[in-house]
């Protein structure tokens, strides 16, 4: 019996074991799950889609590298912001604008708040909101899907601050057609994603599948997308029932950026509620606002503003939905 030899002992506070998951693992898993969505965008819009996503991502990542805390690129959150922003842009958007949007999203959407975990608004959507107000024409110029993979659409290589001279064939999005021309879109192209729109928003079924995978991995909270989609379906279904000239629930669900927003934007952990009850409330709020903006607002699409508006309410939702602490049930014996 000899005394055990120990080179040096590690002393940490309890718990001494922990689950294998980590924040970078969650973030990179989200990045990985976006690959099929980007691929779908490339399938519909060709290499232009890839270039737009790449430009937005570079803008976001470079800004994080320059202004972020040391090593913060490794957590993967800047890459998500860039990818998501790129997916919300038209495939023919000038690349310098996409990159500027990524830089704005990270710089003013995240870093000025204090970096990861501190921001109130979704950085990707803030970047898009900036682009929408700065370049309202470019961000609503939708190239027609199809054509050769290598066809460059729109004004991808326009120089900064020149007036784009677009000779590309453009089309309208299903929501634009509805709002400005009163035309409906067939269900099948909507489901498949062969309509006009942003790089990554048309392939609703692909986004749903990727979201289901993330939810199964517990890397996104399923309550938020379910709450948003159910609310949109319910509210628009009721309105369609009262006034059949209004779009039906299926159209509302699969048009515009709703799928991308519900699955990937609203579920951003940093800018959504921490309580499960709060997540239901948050999702319902987004859903109602989407329908209201789409049907009665001046814009054809309302997902971005709906989510940004509800982002601002998250601290209040959190406060109002705190869990009941064990042993404080009303009417318990005291």
């Amino acid at each position, binding site marked *: 019996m000899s005394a055990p030899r120990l080179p040096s*002992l590690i002393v940490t506070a309890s718990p*001494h074991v922990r689950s294998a998951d980590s924040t970078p693992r969650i973030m990179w898993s989200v990045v990985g799950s976006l690959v099929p969505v980007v691929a779908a965008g490339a399938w519909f819009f060709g290499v232009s889609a890839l270039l737009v996503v790449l430009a937005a991502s570079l803008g976001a990542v470079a800004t994080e590298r320059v202004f972020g805390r040391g090593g913060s690129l490794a957590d993967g959150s800047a890459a998500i912001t860039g990818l998501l922003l790129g997916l919300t842009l038209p495939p023919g958007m000038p690349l310098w604008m996409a990159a500027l949007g990524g830089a704005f999203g990270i710089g003013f959407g995240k870093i000025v708040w204090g970096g990861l975990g501190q921001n109130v608004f979704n950085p990707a959507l803030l970047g898009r909101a900036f682009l929408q107000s700065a370049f309202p024409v470019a961000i609503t110029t939708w190239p027609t899907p199809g054509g050769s993979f290598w066809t460059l659409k729109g004004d991808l290589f326009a120089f900064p601050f020149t007036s784009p001279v677009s000779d590309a064939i453009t089309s309208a999005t299903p929501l634009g057609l509805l709002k400005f021309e009163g035309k409906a879109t067939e269900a099948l192209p909507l489901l498949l994603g062969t309509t006009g729109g942003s790089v990554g928003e048309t392939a609703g079924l692909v986004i749903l599948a990727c979201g289901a995978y993330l939810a199964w991995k517990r890397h996104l909270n399923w309550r938020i997308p379910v709450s948003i989609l159910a609310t949109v379906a319910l509210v628009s279904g009721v309105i369609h029932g009262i006034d059949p000239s209004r779009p039906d629930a299926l159209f509302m669900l699969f048009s515009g950026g709703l799928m991308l927003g519900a699955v990937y934007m609203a579920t951003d952990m940093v800018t959504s509620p921490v309580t499960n009850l709060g997540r239901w409330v948050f999702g319902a709020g987004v859903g109602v606002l989407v329908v209201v903006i789409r049907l009665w607002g001046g814009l054809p699409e309302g997902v971005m503003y709906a989510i940004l508006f509800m982002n601002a309410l998250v601290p209040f939702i959190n406060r109002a939905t705190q869990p009941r602490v064990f042993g404080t049930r009303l009417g318990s014996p*005291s």
Partner: protein
Amino acid sequence: MPFPDTIVLPLRQHAGKPATLCVAVGDHVERGDPVGLADGFLSVPIHASAAGTVTDIGWWPHPDGTMAQAVRIAVDRYAPQLPRPRMVPAWQGLTPEQVVRAVQDAGVVGLGGAAFPTHVKLAPPKDHVVHTLIINGAECEPYLTSDHRTMVEYPERVLFGIRVMMHAMGVPRCVLGVERNKPDAIAALTEALPDDLDITVLPLTVKYPQGAEKMLIQAVTGVEVPSGKLPVHVGVVVQNVGSVAAIGEVFETGLPLIERIVTVSGHGLRKPANLIVPVGTLLRDLLAQCDGVTADAAEVIIGGPMMGQAQANLDAPVLKGTTGVVVLERHETRSAQVWPCIHCGRCLEACPVFLNPSLLGDLARVGHLDAMREHHLADCMLCGSCAYVCPSHIPLSQLFQSSKAALRRAAAGVA
């Protein structure tokens, strides 16, 4: 395990006041002789766990990381280690007060880890009616199996201890809560159940922290103990199954609590085992008994991996409340890297008492102690569930433990 050469008995081994010294350097003690006496009602005596000579009385490393007054005994290698002949108390004839006194004199404390003096719980305040005695056999900490072994190997002793307690407290009903993953323990206890007492064995869901007192009461009775109140407010007293077996032993042999079952486990250990260990055995002797540690062993924890205390050296002794010793290898220890809170909410889902650890963690880092108190920091039992699930690896338990200590200091300063 065989008796080691040295036994170190800290006078502070239990919740409440430390024992007062009653031996001097050079004294010879027999196995079972007191070396410290109870200091008031909320205290218990400490007994020598081996015959030998007191060689030193002074500061010695305590498993909690501090130093404590301790009695060091050089064990007499040639002593037969038989306890002095002693009276075995005949429990049937004793009044409740006498049973409480006998349990206190035997130095019995909660063997589940907290080491709260057992006799105090046997004498509940007179203005409360206790209708159910709950025996905690959940043993939810990973790795630890000492209660499990107790239930499998000494079911009669456990049930005898329950009989004495029910007699002393006048409690009509007893429930033994055992996690479902210990079917052999459930079978052994069910087999040994007496016909004349209302005792049931209740299989419990396997989850951490099922063995926490308030969780167990909720699982057994469906009632939540009100925040800030004691179990007796809902008519319940909880005892750890090891403590009950210790009471059984007191009334079988008359021996005080001088040894206990300790789980020695973990990948960093060559030969994991459950051992009957004399209280006061040093960690180094205990690990040597298990053939020592592997080359990659890096962290030695007294207690379980969720709530236990990491040791800086192997000098600390096994105490009455030492449930186990876990040795982790380097790759199992947690990294020091911490990421910012991303408000994923997993800690809220994990917290057994429904706190908001994410918010409390933010408040702790900016030192808003009053706000933490308003958000029920006092209800946190430091189970570690939040820190376990946190993907950003924020040391939430540690923040809460130090905040609780800061609040206690502030309260003491005001008073």
